[in-house]
């Protein structure tokens, strides 16, 4: 099974109006997805809580198997819609939005 990227985007936007949502398909098969979400609602929340919100938005489509794997990258943005990319945020949530999340592997440590 798979899912349209636009549907994923809409599900997240329904939960997080005003967010910037980028959805990408890691395998070309529509079931291993990465999302980058910048939302004003994330302000003041920890990473775990931000991820909970995003995952809750698409939970139904993970439960039904449409989405097999989902990488999530979250970032708070201010109410004016600036994502703050490149700015040094104060607090714990000022990470750059870089997607490097796919189900890829590196060699295991050999120790």
């Amino acid at each position, binding site marked *: 099974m798979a899912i349209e990227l636009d549907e994923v985007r809409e599900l997240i936007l329904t939960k997080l109006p005003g967010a910037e949502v980028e959805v990408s398909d890691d395998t070309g098969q529509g079931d291993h997805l990465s999302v980058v979400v910048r939302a004003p609602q994330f302000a003041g929340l920890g990473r775990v809580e931000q*991820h909970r919100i995003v995952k809750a938005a698409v939970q139904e489509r993970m439960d039904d198997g449409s989405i097999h794997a989902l990488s999530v990258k979250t970032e708070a943005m201010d109410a004016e819609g600036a994502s703050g990319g490149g700015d040094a945020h104060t607090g714990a949530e000022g990470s750059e939005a870089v997607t*490097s999340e796919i189900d890829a*592997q590196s060699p295991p440590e050999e120790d």
Partner: protein
Amino acid sequence: MADPALRDKVEELIRDHPVLLFMKGTPEAPRCGFSMRVVQTLDSLGVEYGAIDVLPALEPLREATGEISDWRTFPQLYVKGELVGGADIVDEMYASGELAELLEVEQPEDAAPPSPNGQPTPGQSPPLQIE
């Protein structure tokens, strides 16, 4: 509803292990790329951790961790009884040095995320997928 006995057991495991990873497969043989990434990160930090293979009881454990931590995907890393997050959060915190700080270990000098380009390493088998 999660099985109360299982839920108690999971809570006990979280409480009793300073660093605990719920993962698909084992540290020696991870069966999911996300779980493998967290194993590699913990190994590179040189920390001891308990690892629970969730595959033999995937759905019951999903229910249990959903109730305990409101988190239903694996891997899940717990440190000092608190949910740190899944592979994406662990990667971010590793890259920023927050994870080393939390675990009270030295940040390795070559602390690049395990898969900086997201490219499979040639010669590696693809991750096994549990459908």
